[in-house]
């Protein structure tokens, strides 16, 4: 059969390509390991095997036309009865109900006792979750600093941009990021709940939907946009949600300027920042 001969030749060629690919991989690795060449050579090596084996299976091996019997899985009822008798017969330990009950109680009590160490997954040195969620490191007198640690003055806040701030000494806390922005008092339709210093206000940076930083500021409309799920907050209306899946306004941060002109917090956010939770006040 010339068709079979041709198939054998092609398969041999494919396996030969695999050898070339493998050699290419080894050489590429030794010469500095270019990622693209490594991927191509290894891919070609495996593709050679894949093609050769597929052709082998398709052209040179008998396929189809076989039948295997599939015996019934279900045993006759008498055998099932025998199984049940062997399990529950007179010699069976399951007959002593009282002992089995106590055994289950004992095993269960160990199971319950072993659940207690799960609590160690949460450090005992930290307060309980609800307290942690309700409070942040912002407090009266804490200075506002940039994420790099530079204290911020009122005069540093330019119109047309936002300044991201964190409390001094708590740069990496997840719930503290806030931003400062200079608003146009003429266009203000609702006075910020946390107050303002001149025309500068501070809000939590975290979206009240799923906690992403709402870092996209649209100056013309004074809106903050969340890049994760496209919620929008109107800063002229005390950061009320106006589009997208967020349902609560961004919490405000009460601020004041100290004697040196640096901005300090007057307390914590007006409500817990970020996503909501069951015990949200």
């Amino acid at each position, binding site marked *: 059969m010339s068709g079979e001969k041709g198939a054998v030749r092609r398969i041999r060629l494919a396996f030969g390509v695999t050898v070339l690919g493998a050699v290419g991989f080894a050489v590429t690795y030794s010469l500095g390991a270019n990622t693209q060449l*490594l991927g191509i050579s290894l891919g070609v090596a495996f593709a050679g095997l894949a093609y050769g084996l*597929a052709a082998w299976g398709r052209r040179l091996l008998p396929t189809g036309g076989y039948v295997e019997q599939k015996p019934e899985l279900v045993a006759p009822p008498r055998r099932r009865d025998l199984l049940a008798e062997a399990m529950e017969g007179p010699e069976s330990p399951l007959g002593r109900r009282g002992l089995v009950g106590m055994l289950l109680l004992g095993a269960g009590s160990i199971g319950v006792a072993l659940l207690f160490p799960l609590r160690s997954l*949460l450090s005992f040195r930290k307060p309980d979750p609800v307290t942690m969620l309700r409070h942040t490191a912002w407090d009266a007198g804490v200075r506002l600093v940039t994420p790099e640690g530079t204290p911020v003055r009122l005069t540093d806040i330019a119109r047309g941009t936002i300044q991201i701030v964190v409390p001094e000494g708590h740069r990496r806390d*997840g719930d503290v990021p806030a931003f400062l922005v200079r608003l146009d008092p003429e266009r203000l339709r609702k006075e910020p709940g946390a107050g303002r210093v001149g025309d500068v206000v501070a809000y939590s940076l975290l979206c009240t939907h799923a906690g992403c930083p709402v870092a996209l500021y649209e100056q013309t409309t004074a809106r903050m946009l969340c890049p994760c799920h496209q919620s929008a907050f109107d800063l002229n209306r005390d950061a009320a949600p106006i*589009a997208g899946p967020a*349902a609560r306004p961004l919490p405000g941060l009460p601020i004041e300027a100290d004697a040196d002109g640096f901005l300090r917090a007057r307390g914590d956010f007006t409500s817990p920042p970020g*996503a909501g939770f069951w015990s949200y006040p």
Partner: protein
Amino acid sequence: MITRRLYRALDARLGTTSAGRTALAKVFPDHWTFMFGEVAIYAFLALLLTGTYLTLFFDPSTADTVYDGAYQPLDGSTVSSAFASTVTLSFDVRAGLLIRQAHHWAALLFVAAIVVHLLRVFFTGAFRRPRELNWVVGVTMLTLALLNGFTGYSMPDDLLSGTGLRIIYSTVLSIPVVGSWIAMLAFGGEFPSDETAPRLYISHVLIVPAIFLALISLHLVMIIRQKHSQFPGPGRREHNVVGSRLWPAYAVRSLSLLTGVLAAVFTLGGLVQINPVWIYGPFHPAQATSPAQPDWYVAWGDGALRLFPPIEVHIAGHLVPAPFFPAVGLGTVTFLLLYAWPWLERWRTADKASHQILERPRDRPGRVAVGAYALTFFAVLLVTAADDILARLTGIPVTGILRTLQILVLVLPFAVAATAFVVARSLRAGTATTVGELTREDLHAGLTGSDELPEESRHPAERIRLWRNPDDTWRWCWHGPGDDLTSNEVFLDRAEALAAARTAFPGVSVEQDGPPEGVVLPPPRHEPGPATKAAAGLVWVAMAVLGRRADRRRSSPSEAPE
């Protein structure tokens, strides 16, 4: 022969012969849709191999470290160890980037293969009795695959994965009553916690893969015990499997599939960049990437979060936040429905019988409609996860796109389901094999037709021939309209062969006959020819001479001093 000695040695210790013969002769149905599960297994193998390599270089810690390496923009900057080691293994470990990207591509392929496999099982009714347990195991593996995919791409501590983790954290927080406790116990404290990275790591590389391996084994053991289901066709019955044997056909085909999967994964890993964490930069709680899209298999959840309106519920002074309904609620409902589907359908159809013959999708228009509804629903969610990119591409404001998608997610699934229902019924009613061949009459029948299954026609013109081979083994062959099917095994005696034939085709008459023309027997064992014998003799002599020389040389130094 060396192989025969191996068989004998194994058989003497483990008694492997009979099981081995059955295994080699095991029949697999010849249909391409049976390959998806195999692709998933091979992708899992690729994940294990590449993943093990990655563990040797990855450091799951958020401790500060100074990155010092070949990637210039980050050289000398202080980042977490997890991020630094990811960049190091991408740029400073030879072949590291290839393996890392191949790992990520294998993960995408893995979940895709599982989902397509699940769809095949769903639309052909392969989950029906006796395979409900395997359906449950399979759905569990899908959830574990999603979980492990997510923990995997969350580990590098880059900006995108940090954002994804934060969304999951917020989602867990939204669970009523226990949400904040579960979130903090899982993450080790308020997000971002230093405890999180080691937990993601041990779960990703040990706990979930170990459970997954156990479940794969269970899945396969059940398949071997129950044997494959098969599509209807000539000679295909409830008590047999028709197709090709494991050895040689499927061993070779399956190896081809394995190497094909590896070829795809490594080619993609080398050529197509995926998850370039060095571009996203390290995680910082005050930053986010834009646009931000998760991997495709969790994108439906992200899409649901974007799509769901801002509804928050207050219960007795407590809050159920917006993410609860689209993320926790939808996910729970989806997987509960998936788990319960075999029993839901049985309740609807009152079909409690055991099934080995699969249905074509058209045989069950109702099921096609449900599947089409679910697929369309999740497709719309998947598109929603890219609404910001759509807005950027089309110039339409994102709120407009969102509103359109909110309407589509309610309307489109019903429309597609109704269409699929009618098409399935039309296909069932007429003689068309594909949608393109449907005639006006077929469609009319589909719109008005009844829900009855067509009667299965019985062919009386079938018989089984049983014969004795020249080497005293027995075999049988089924002859019927459309096909001739040979027994997968050769039998040592007549009774064995007869019993097998009667099991496979109950009620079909068996007649004894001579062996058919061109029966293929194993070639006789080779007696060594004269040339081989001569060569062996020469080798023996050569060995003997060399051995003596070596002896003499070894003994001579000890004699020298005397």
